[in-house]
């Protein structure tokens, strides 16, 4: 049995009449790098604020390191977080801001501060006041503050915001290192699946406050494989043929092509089948699935499902 670090159960959250979270349940196990994916306003930040008690929990239950949220004693001490924009004292330097975090957490070691600065690549800006940091540098300072106390569980809300491509790769690398060398369990959010694809081991999709799906990286790789595009003269006839041979699912992007969402079909057999049924096949190509496609389709399916309800 994997050890649960976070257990989120039937949590709902309302702001006035607005249902920001609707009975959300999920679990994060030790060692996971859990990617929380959702569009703007989906409820990612709300989830993170509930975990860290920045937002009071009214419905459902949350347990962190086995402690329930009404009685967190040690759980928050083992948790580091950067939620929404990173916060720092603007008139203090990078080092001074980290010293404050060290004092708050009762850490003595000076070296830990230098290490954290080094870790996020801010050494050259050590003595710079927070107000004079660039957006990406502030993001890095926030990350340094979150990792300084060596948390067992790290919560990062869109940490990649404002980073340059090199920075994104670096952060990815840092998270990988934290996860592998210090066994830090990580919850990370983004509205872009491909941003997290490279780093996360599990993905939770959240849409309009509902938790719609959870997949592991392997499952995602399997599911996202897109399929085969057929160029035909008569799409309705081709569709009939596919239907009767039970080749599904497929979609019709335009009046001369069909997209079969299955990658492991025998293409020779498929073309033969179509031709024998009188469909003129002008082309056939295999397609690597893109993450964005997977994501948009998932959202679409959910919205359609919602409408049926």
């Amino acid at each position, binding site marked *: 049995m994997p050890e649960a670090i976070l257990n989120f159960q039937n949590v709902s959250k309302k702001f006035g009449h607005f249902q920001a979270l609707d009975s959300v349940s999920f679990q994060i196990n030790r060692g996971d790098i859990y990617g929380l994916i959702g569009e703007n306003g989906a409820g990612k930040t709300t989830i993170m604020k509930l975990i860290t008690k920045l937002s*009071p929990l009214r419905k459902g239950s949350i347990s962190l390191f086995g402690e329930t949220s009404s009685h967190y004693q040690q759980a928050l001490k083992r948790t580091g977080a950067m939620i929404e924009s990173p916060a720092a004292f603007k008139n203090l330097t990078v080092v001074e801001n980290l010293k404050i975090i060290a*004092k708050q957490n009762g850490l003595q070691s000076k070296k830990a501060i230098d290490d954290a600065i080094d870790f996020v690549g801010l050494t050259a800006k050590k003595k710079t006041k927070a107000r004079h940091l660039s957006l990406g540098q502030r993001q890095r300072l926030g990350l340094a503050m979150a990792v300084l106390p060596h948390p067992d569980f790290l919560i990062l809300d869109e940490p990649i915001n404002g980073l340059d491509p090199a920075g994104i790769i670096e952060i990815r690398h840092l998270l990988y290192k934290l996860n592998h060398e210090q066994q830090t369990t990580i919850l990370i959010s983004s509205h872009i699946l491909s941003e997290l694809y490279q780093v996360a081991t599990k993905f939770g999709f959240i849409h309009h406050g509902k938790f719609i799906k959870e997949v592991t990286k392997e499952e995602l790789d399997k599911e996202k494989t897109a399929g085969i595009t057929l160029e035909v003269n008569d799409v309705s006839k081709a569709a009939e043929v596919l239907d009767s041979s039970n080749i599904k699912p497929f979609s019709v992007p335009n009046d001369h092509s069909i997209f079969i969402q299955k990658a492991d079909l025998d293409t020779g057999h498929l073309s033969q089948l179509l031709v024998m049924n009188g469909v003129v096949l002008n082309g056939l190509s295999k397609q690597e699935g893109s993450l964005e496609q997977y994501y948009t389709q998932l959202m679409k399916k959910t919205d359609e499902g919602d409408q049926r309800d």
Partner: protein
Amino acid sequence: MTNVINQLRADAYRLTRSTGFYIMLVLVVSYNALITKTKWFGGIVGNVSEKASDHLTHTSWSMIDGVQGSTISAGLLMYVLMGLFVIIIGYEFSQQTYKNTLISGISRLQFILSKYVAMLISILMTIAVYFITTIVTSLIFGRRVGTSWIHLLSVGSSATIAITFFISIVFSMAILLLMFTNSVIISSFFIVIFPVAVMILHTRANWKWLKYIDFFSASNRISLGNMSIVEFSPYVLTCGIILIVCIGLSLLIIREKEL
């Protein structure tokens, strides 16, 4: 308890790193040196007996007169001390660093208490500096003590403690206001407006109970030796109640707040 101490250490560190704090100390020292040197007293005064007022206006000041004059003039310090409130708790909210602070594992009660204690200690230090300046300035101008050293020090320290305690009560109300309004500006403004408002109401409206929150009149009487321990106790009681209510309500609000 360790959480509170850790937070106090963090706040102390932050104070020593802020220019505002040093400017504040310079202002306090200059203000008091000016009072002691020129024998001026006043500002937001509260009630002072005519006899005492006459005495201070017409004699050349000894050290004890300096201490009494400084006590009477302490009301204006609120404008400077407001800076402590802004730095210690205001910045946490205006710069959103409360997120880091609260995630460090400190409870809401520990957070509010540590902020109150941080203010209490820093007010105490500042007021002590204020009265020490009186004594040092008097020494520089070669003034006589005017009473025994023991008496001087005891008047000086009881005035320091009383003023500190009273001001901290005003700060506790400002904390509550900050929790309630989310506005650092409104709550700091309250700090400077409070003594003036109470003084005006006290003299105009003639509400007897107001005297228990007319802190500056009370500290004047302490400094001038016009208040006995027995008379002092209802003040302590009133302040204790205000403090508990303010901290309790602040706690309730911050617990229920979307941060």
